[in-house]
């Protein structure tokens, strides 16, 4: 292996891993507090994508359009909380799972009904199609943007979680919800904030993801959701660090499979990764990195 291949491999892993880590983090923020898998998470990516599509042709610069799209994903996240979770929070876990599944189907079919079942191109800035050459390797600029924005976002998120009152309240709620309420943390507000953060991650993921595929379809949210699932399970469903580690690890596994597996086995790659999920859940139910100890779900 020469230096070029190693650089290529490393950048592929970092690029895919950054995307996966952001996806996983958006899911874990919710799971940490509500102990709940949000099936409608993928549809937030879709909402951001369609917002970008609808803004196509407006005179706004692309960055503003992207910002509006991310804001819509945040609003989508908050709506998910209000529609699918808050009314049934007192009921069983299963009820919340089904409402989130129903809400996901609702959004997807709304896109199908009101926009189109066919793929729609979204506007993208010039820079997403350019590439640079380094050590004889052609690197698309969008990959570098993905890596950079993931690092910035992860850094900012860490700062918020460690240094601000809001972050501490979120972590307290995630580790022991009842206790957090007793010391005066407003429950509804914290949960809504968690959903807003989840929406923020979904929005950013949508922008980077669309930069890769260039078009939005109603089913676009499924892949990010599945990736987030796997990454969370590998890294640890209860730990924010675990989600990021899981994202990068999954990317490492995926890219290695791409380089190593023969083509006719490569089509079964997803089956392999999901088998791995089941095995990890069986052997280490809390994932590779254990989160904070927890009381019961409230």
């Amino acid at each position, binding site marked *: 292996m020469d230096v070029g291949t190693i650089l290529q491999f490393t950048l592929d892993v970092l690029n895919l891993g950054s995307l996966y880590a952001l996806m996983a983090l958006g899911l874990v923020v919710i*799971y940490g507090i509500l*102990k*709940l898998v949000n099936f409608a998470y993928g549809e937030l990516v879709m909402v951001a994508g369609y917002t970008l599509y609808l803004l196509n042709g407006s005179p706004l610069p692309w960055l503003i359009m992207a910002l509006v799209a991310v804001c819509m994903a945040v609003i989508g996240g908050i709506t998910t909380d209000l529609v699918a979770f808050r009314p*049934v929070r007192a*009921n069983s876990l299963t009820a919340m799972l*089904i409402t989130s599944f*129903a809400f996901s189907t609702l959004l997807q079919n709304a896109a199908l009904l009101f926009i189109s079942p066919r793929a729609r191109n979204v506007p993208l800035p010039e820079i997403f199609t350019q590439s640079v050459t380094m050590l004889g390797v052609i690197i698309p600029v969008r990959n570098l943007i993905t890596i950079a924005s993931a690092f910035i976002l992860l850094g900012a998120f860490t700062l918020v979680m460690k240094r601000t009152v809001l972050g501490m309240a979120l972590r307290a709620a995630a580790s022991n919800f009842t206790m957090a309420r007793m010391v005066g943390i407003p429950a509804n507000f914290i949960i809504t904030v968690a959903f807003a953060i989840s929406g923020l991650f979904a929005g950013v993921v949508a922008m980077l993801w669309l930069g890769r595929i260039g078009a939005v379809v109603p089913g676009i949210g499924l892949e990010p959701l599945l990736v987030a*699932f796997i990454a969370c399970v590998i890294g640890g469903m209860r730990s924010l660090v675990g989600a990021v580690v899981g994202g990068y690890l999954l990317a490492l596994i995926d890219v290695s499979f791409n380089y190593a597996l023969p083509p006719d086995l490569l089509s079964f790659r997803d089956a392999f990764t999901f*088998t791995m999920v089941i095995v990890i859940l*069986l052997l280490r139910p809390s994932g590779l990195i254990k989160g904070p100890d927890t009381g019961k779900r409230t």
Partner: protein
Amino acid sequence: MNRHLVTLICITLPVVLLVIAAELIDDRLLTRLATTLCINMILVLGLQIFTGNSGILSFAHIGFMGIGAYTSAVITMPARLKSMALPELYPIMQGVQLDPLVGMAIGGVVAALVAAIVAYPLMRLSDAAAVITSFALLMILHTIMVHWSEVTNGPRTLFGIVEATTLQLAAAAAVVAAIGAYWFKESRVGILLRAVRNDEVAAAAIGAHIPLLRWRAYVLSAFYAGIGGALWAHFITSFSPNAFYLRETFVILGMLVIGGPATVSGAVFGVFSVTAVFEGLRALEKAINAADLFSSTVVGLTEIILALVMLIVLILRPGGIIERNEFGTLARWPFMKKQNSSRGE
């Protein structure tokens, strides 16, 4: 009258009446609709057996439906059609051509066997972990169906399946399925399983072997799904792996949740009411499209309404419309003064 008997009559009578009505009216469309309803009823009852009694959501159910459908389709297909529909099929399988009824039974058994092998280690998991593994299982089964082109014709449509499912056959299977589901619910395993659902620790303390109990329900549930899938395959005669994915999962889950997952009566009620609403909406969708009211065709309206109904039902009645009392207990309300709330469940 015995409350079990009343319940059994109430859950099987609608199917019998439906068949009689379909025979009398003898409309092709109505017959097809009634057959679909009976098949859906088997699938919903299968899901009820596991989810209703154990309280754990299972997404993999539709994957087992796919296993039943493909198994039965492949082993009953005439040899000359096989060389066209499945050119890459293994030589050993090429000559196999069984009677459709035998094929359907084998389809169910294969689905149950696969479930028996893969599910046992998973039955230890509860809550979110259980849901994620069942979701992962659906993804694995779907990936295999899409890529195993030797047997499933890959992501393309598999055609040339023997048409063998009549309304009478589907209805008979649905009646047996309903009786079987109720029998399981009232059996020792069913009662113990619901004890586990209500309190894992307490049930384990009185000696309930939790993984084994769940496993039994799961295998039976997969058998139902396999039979349902096989019946569906011989009814629709051509399908692709996408038929066994999230959309179908959503419809089956919707029927169960709206009707009430904890009771067999609820499952049956859910199938009938959702089918009625669904078909009405589909007719409306078709009428709108035919009248050209909008520039583009209307798709997805039925799913939107179903999703909304699911949300509303879960918010207002978290346990579904028939929450805990079977028809047999419900029917005694007018005659009995009290005491059934303690007997219910």
